[in-house]
C-alpha cells in the first residue's frame, strides 16, 4: 500500500505558495516598521506577532473557525462578497495559514533590518533618495538572504501545519485535505504504507529546508533565525 493520489501534495504546495507570497508582501513593511518604530505599542505588537509560535494550533484554529463562521461579521461579509463560506474553504485555509506562519516570515526580516546600520538609510536620504527608493535600493538588497530565509520558513511551516488546517479547513479531499491531514486519515484507516510515504516525504523536505537555512547562515556568518 503506497501513496497513489497526489492531490494532497498539490493542495499543500498551492497553499504554501500562496501563503508565502502574501506573507512576504505583508511581512516586509511590517518588519520594517517593527525594526524602526519607537511606538510604545511595540511590545504589544511583538507579542501578538509571536503568539502563533507558542499557541496550540487548535486554539488558533478554534478562534479562526469562530471568526470565519457564517454568524460572524467576517464570515458574513465574506459570504456576501464571494458567495461562498470562508470556513472549510481553500481561501479560509490561506487566511489561517497567513496568521499561523506570520512570525516565521516577520522575525527573520525584522532582525535583518534591525541589524542594518541605520546610517545606510540616512546616507541614502542625504544623497537624495526618497524613502521608497532607499528601501528598494538599500534595504532590500541588504536583507536578501533573510528574505529567502523568511520565504523558506514560511513555506515549510505552512506545509507542516496540521491543527489549524484541521479546525478551519476540515478534511475535504481535493479541496482542503493537505498532506498532514492525509497522513492522519491514512493512520485512522490503518493504511500505514501510505502514511509512511507521506511522512517520509515531509520529514526529508523539512530537514532539507532547515539545512538550507542554516547553511546559508553559515556562509554569511550570521544567525538569521533561531
Amino acid at each position: 500500500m503506497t501513496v497513489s493520489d497526489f492531490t494532497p501534495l498539490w493542495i499543500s504546495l498551492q497553499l504554501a505558495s500562496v501563503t508565502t507570497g502574501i506573507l512576504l508582501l505583508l511581512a516586509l513593511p511590517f518588519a520594517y516598521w517593527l525594526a524602526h518604530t519607537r511606538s510604545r505599542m511595540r511590545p504589544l505588537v511583538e507579542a501578538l506577532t509571536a503568539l502563533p509560535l507558542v499557541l496550540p494550533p487548535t486554539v488558533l484554529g478554534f478562534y479562526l473557525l469562530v471568526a470565519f463562521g457564517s454568524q460572524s461579521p467576517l464570515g458574513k461579509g465574506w459570504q456576501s462578497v464571494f458567495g461562498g463560506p470562508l470556513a472549510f474553504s481553500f481561501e479560509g485555509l490561506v487566511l489561517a495559514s497567513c496568521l499561523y506562519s506570520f512570525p516565521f516570515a516577520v522575525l527573520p526580516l525584522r532582525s535583518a533590518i534591525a541589524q542594518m546600520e541605520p546610517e545606510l538609510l540616512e546616507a541614502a536620504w542625504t544623497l537624495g533618495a526618497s524613502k521608497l527608493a532607499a528601501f528598494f535600493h538599500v534595504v532590500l538588497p541588504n536583507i536578501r538572504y533573510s528574505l529567502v530565509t523568511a520565504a523558506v520558513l514560511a513555506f515549510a511551516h505552512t506545509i507542516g501545519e496540521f491543527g489549524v488546517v484541521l479546525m478551519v479547513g476540515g478534511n475535504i479531499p481535493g479541496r482542503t485535505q493537505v498532506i498532514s491531514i492525509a497522513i492522519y486519515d491514512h493512520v485512522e484507516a490503518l493504511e500505514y504504507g501510505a502514511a509512511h510515504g507521506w511522512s517520509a516525504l515531509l520529514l526529508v523536505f523539512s530537514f532539507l529546508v532547515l539545512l538550507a537555512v542554516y547553511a546559508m547562515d553559515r556562509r554569511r556568518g550570521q544567525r538569521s533565525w533561531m
Partner: protein
Amino acid sequence: MDVGIAARVEYSRGPRAVSLALSAAGGGISVVVGPSGSGKSTLLRILAGLLTPDKGYIQVRDQPWFDHSKGIDLAPQQRRVGMVFQDYALFPNMSALDNVAFARRGREDRRQARKAAARFLAKVHMEGLQDRYPRELSGGQKQRVAVARALAREPDLLLLDEPFSAVDQVVRRKLREELLELSASLQCAVILVTHDLQEAAMLGQQVGVMHRGSLLQMGAREEIFYRPADVMAARLLDMRNILPAEVVSADGRETVVRWAGTLLSAYTTQRFQVGERIWAGIRPEHVLVVRRDGPRRPNEVSGTVSRMLFLGGQVQVSFQPDGAEEEVSLEFSEHLLPRFQVETGKPLRASLWRERLHLMRQGTDEA
C-alpha cells in the same frame, strides 16, 4: 551671493541637547572640536535634516533649509548636503562606482551618472578600484569613496563626522593632507567634527569649541588656540598651563599680573581691573627654555624639572617653578636638549612668551 552657512538651532530631544549659533564661510574647512558626547554628531544630523530642531533656522547659500518661525523644514533629500558618516555608511551591495553614482540618481541617466562617479573617484585617487565592493576596500579607501560620494551630490554644504577615526595613524595623516588639498578646490562650506585637537589645528581654517551641546567659542584657528575665550575653553583646547593671577597694572595694551610672586606681562587689548583675579594661560610650546648662562628674559621663571616625556622628536617637560603651587608644562624640539641641558631634578629657566601669554576670566561653566 554668500556660499556659506548661518544657523542657530535648539534641539532638546535625544541624549544630548544642542543649543548654538554657528556660521561658516564657503571654502576652507570649519572644524567643530569637542569631547565625545558634546553633541557634535547631533549638530551634523540637524544640519543634514536627519533631526529636526525645536527652534531656530538654518540658512545655506542664502537658502532657508530650516526656519521654525516660517514653518520651513526641508527634508534631507531636498537639502544639497554631502555627508561623510563616521563609519562611512557605504552601501555594501554596491561597488565603489555605484556607491558614488547613487548620488547622481535622478540628475542624469545611468551611463552619465557612472561617468561622473568615475570623475569624482579620480578626485580622491581611487581610479582602478572603482569596481571593488566596500568589503574589499581598506579603511582609508572606504573613506575616500565616502568623500567622493558626498562630493558627487555637488553639495552646498559638506559635513564630515569624525572622518579619520576609523583608520590608522599613517593613513590618517595622508588622508588629512588630501582633504586639506581637496577642500581648497571646493566652493561650498565644509564642516568637520572631531574630538582630535591636532586634527582641528591642522585642518580648521575656522575652529569652534563644543561642550555640552553649545559652542563656547568659534573663530579663526589662531584665535581659538592662542586666545581661548575662558578657562573652560582653554581646558578643552588642552592649553595645559592655566595659572591663577592677579592684575597689577593694565593700560589697554600691556597688562601685568602677579602669579606665585612673579610678575608676568602680557600684550592684550582686553580690559581688566587692577586687583581682579583672572587666569594667565599659555600653551606648552610657547614656554621657552632659557640657557643656563643666558641673560634674563621677560616673564622669566625658574624652578626644578620634575618630569620629562619624549614624544617622538618633541620633549615635554614639567617643571616646578620656585614658590608656585602649579607645575608648568613646556614642549620643545628634542635636538635642543643638549644645548639647554635639561634634566630631571635639575634647575631650569624658562620664559613665558609675552606675545602668547593669554589672560582670561573664569567663564560661566566650570568643568
